[in-house]
């Protein structure tokens, strides 16, 4: 609700329009005088220059940004970040293994002869796998009377 019926015309006059009798009314009307003072404060604020960052302030300015960016996250955020990172690493490792190994397959240990020898003269021992994969030690005897 308007404090004075002249308010609109006073605002027009304040903006530079020709309004007959407006200046005289403002001089007599306390409400319109207050309105003009408020409009003057707003105009002054709008015309004030924006604050600038001087070159000497740039290091501190960027330091502030860096501190914000590098600020430690709350503890729970770090836990979830670690979990996410771990899962991502597992997925990546599993995928790599699956690709390189041709897919998952059961790891089956084999029967393996680690060492073998013979004390028989004129004999040697050979280690091989037979056609069906049986680990085999075979003595090769050159002959002679062993009994």
């Amino acid at each position, binding site marked *: 609700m308007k404090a004075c019926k002249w308010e609109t015309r006073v605002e027009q006059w304040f903006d530079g329009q020709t309004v007959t009798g407006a200046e005289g009314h403002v001089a007599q009307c306390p409400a319109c005088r207050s309105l003009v003072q408020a409009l003057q404060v707003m105009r002054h604020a709008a015309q004030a220059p924006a604050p600038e960052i001087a070159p000497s302030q740039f290091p501190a300015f960027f330091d502030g940004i860096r501190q914000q960016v590098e600020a430690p996250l709350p503890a729970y955020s770090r836990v979830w970040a670690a979990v996410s990172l771990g899962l991502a690493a597992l997925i990546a490792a599993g995928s790599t293994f699956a690709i390189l190994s041709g897919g998952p397959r059961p790891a089956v240990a084999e029967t*393996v002869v680690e060492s073998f020898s013979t*004390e028989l003269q004129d004999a040697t021992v050979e280690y091989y796998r037979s056609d069906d994969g*049986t680990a085999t*030690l075979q003595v090769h005897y050159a002959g002679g009377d062993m009994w």
Partner: protein
Amino acid sequence: MMMSALILAAFLTAAPASQAAADPGPPVETMVVAVRAVETGTGEKHLDPRLEPLKTLLLRLPYDTFEQAASASRTVAFGQETAFPLTAEYTLLITPLERDEDGRVKLRARVQMTSRDPNRPPVNAVNSVTKVVPGDRLQIRGLPLEKGELVLFLSVTPRGESAPPNRRR
């Protein structure tokens, strides 16, 4: 923190393996079959019926007659050497040494040969160390016999465990 979790997980995963290495577990059931493979020159193949399960393996050998010379099954404790007499000339000596992280039984197998000459000491015709998958088979062949050779088949299974179904008997 993440690294600590990974190290802990690796430790927990590795723990059973190291325990298995420290404690070899129960004795192993050791089965041995010895086959006398000879060439008689009859031109006909003869296979001892008791060796039927080994038919495929044996009939590949350059002999025409296969007879079972010995068969035995015994429980052998880790670190204990046990003798399996095979023939008058040969004795198999088995010593289970340990179980590895894959469940294999590491064992020493010696085939000792006794000469007919009492002045000759016994010698190791074969001295071997093998990691045997439970239920799997180790074959030792070429042990000289008159007109042929002695072929051994050896299998071990930790007592209380059954051999995997995919393993050969």
